[in-house]
């Protein structure tokens, strides 16, 4: 294993899986929790779903520094906008600010984002803002390095008019599938559900996620594995 010093000076980035899904009445956002510098996991429990306003959240992928700066600016602009308007900002306005910063500074930013939220005019909405700074309104959006493993899955599994429960389960399943196949995604699954009722955050620890092809039950040590069933540890 060659662990080079450059890896530690590499930009802190989020090889990530991020997801936004609309359902009947709102949206569910989901993300894994791994951030890495080169091959080192710098944070195994990070929060990539950032709050912009009471009713709008943002999933971040790519350079951590860039996406934090963009989200900090957008949050600041939205607070100002909310005060001037005297009512909550819409998801469209939030997404458009994210797009504006991403597009105007496209040569300096390495970050893709998904904006999701609920407002009284348009209900639950998901906007993808990928690398070049375009904006795409979508019924569902996926992003980050783990998303390559999920396109086919979403084409098959996403349905119009899902319930909150169905959408949440879809997001958790998708993120755990991506964690299983993408080395740069891992840790826990975090979800944020936004609808007319408000916001609820959920947390699914890594050892409670479903097991996929060839995955093993979580074990504390080799001794546990040896105590299970087979008397011949090498035949496990």
């Amino acid at each position, binding site marked *: 294993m060659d662990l080079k010093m450059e890896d530690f000076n590499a930009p*802190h980035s989020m090889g990530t899986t991020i997801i936004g899904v609309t359902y009947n009445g709102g949206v569910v956002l989901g993300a894994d929790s791994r951030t890495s510098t080169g091959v080192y996991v710098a944070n195994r429990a990070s929060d990539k779903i950032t709050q912009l306003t009471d009713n709008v959240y943002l999933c971040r992928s790519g350079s951590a*520094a860039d996406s934090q700066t963009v989200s900090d600016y957008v949050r600041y602009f939205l607070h100002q906008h909310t005060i001037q308007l005297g009512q909550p900002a819409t998801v469209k306005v939030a997404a458009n600010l994210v797009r504006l910063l991403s597009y105007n500074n496209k040569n300096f930013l390495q970050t893709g984002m998904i904006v999701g939220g609920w407002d009284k005019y348009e209900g639950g909405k998901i906007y993808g803002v990928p690398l070049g700074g375009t904006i795409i309104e979508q019924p569902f959006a996926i992003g980050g390095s783990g998303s390559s493993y999920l396109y086919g899955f979403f084409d098959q599994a996403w349905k119009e008019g899902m319930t909150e429960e169905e959408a949440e389960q879809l997001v958790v399943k998708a993120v755990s599938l991506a964690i299983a196949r993408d080395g740069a995604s891992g840790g826990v699954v975090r979800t944020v559900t936004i609808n007319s009722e408000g916001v609820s955050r959920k947390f699914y620890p890594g050892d409670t996620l479903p097991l996929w092809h060839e995955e093993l039950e979580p074990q504390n040590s080799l001794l546990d594995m040896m105590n299970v069933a087979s008397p011949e540890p090498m035949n496990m």
Partner: protein
Amino acid sequence: MSNSAIDVPSRGGFSFDLCRRNDMLAKKGVNLPSFRKTGTTIVGLIFQDGVILGADTRATEGPIVCDKNCEKIHYMAPNIYCCGAGTAADTEAVTDMVSSQLQLHRYHTGRESRVVTALTLLKKHLFNYQGYVQAALVLGGVDCTGPHLHTIYPHGSTDTLPFATMGSGSLAAMAMFESKYKEGLTKDEGIQLVVDAICSGIFNDLGSGSNVDVCVITKGHKEYLRNHLLPNPRTFVNAKGYSFPKKTEVLLTKITPLRERVEVVEGGDAMEE
């Protein structure tokens, strides 16, 4: 698609052209002299009533240890301290600058500084310099909203964690934290774990060494334990000691007066305007 060389905005932000030129020259073999680095182990953790920060005390310049007992836990505010890893000059400069900004902010508001304020000022500066200010920091403190611990990377990204490590010894130190950290540690348990983490960096990482500095911050109180542990004392001290002659030996007493080579003429013509 657009060509990035063409549609760069004409204004705003810093110019990093010379940095790119230097990278190009370095690739061609024109190497600049190296900076003093703190190949370092720095750590921090949250315990039941505050934050504990820890650091080793070795500073290196390439393969040479250039300071065996340097200070890596920097003062930010009376209730906030910051451990620095990376280029020594950068960690020193950025923490000094932000600490003076915090002091001015306290004069202005008459209130205790908050950790998030320090965090925002630091990340803003580091992000502006796009990673060229090589400072990797562990920021800890206790303010009116409770204890806080953050890590800040040279590119300006930040994390909020219950326990954190940075520097070249961060892997060794993180191994100790991952196996022993739990919520609600007492002060003594916390200090012991920080010391264990730093020692693991000192003994297993070539970039770290010498002594252990610790800083304990609690509500309205702090304890800076400089050289809390000295695991690498001098092993050989000459029993007889060293003696030197008190006076400098006199080799010559003859004084040769120097002749003035330029004669100064008093008076003369006044200089023209």
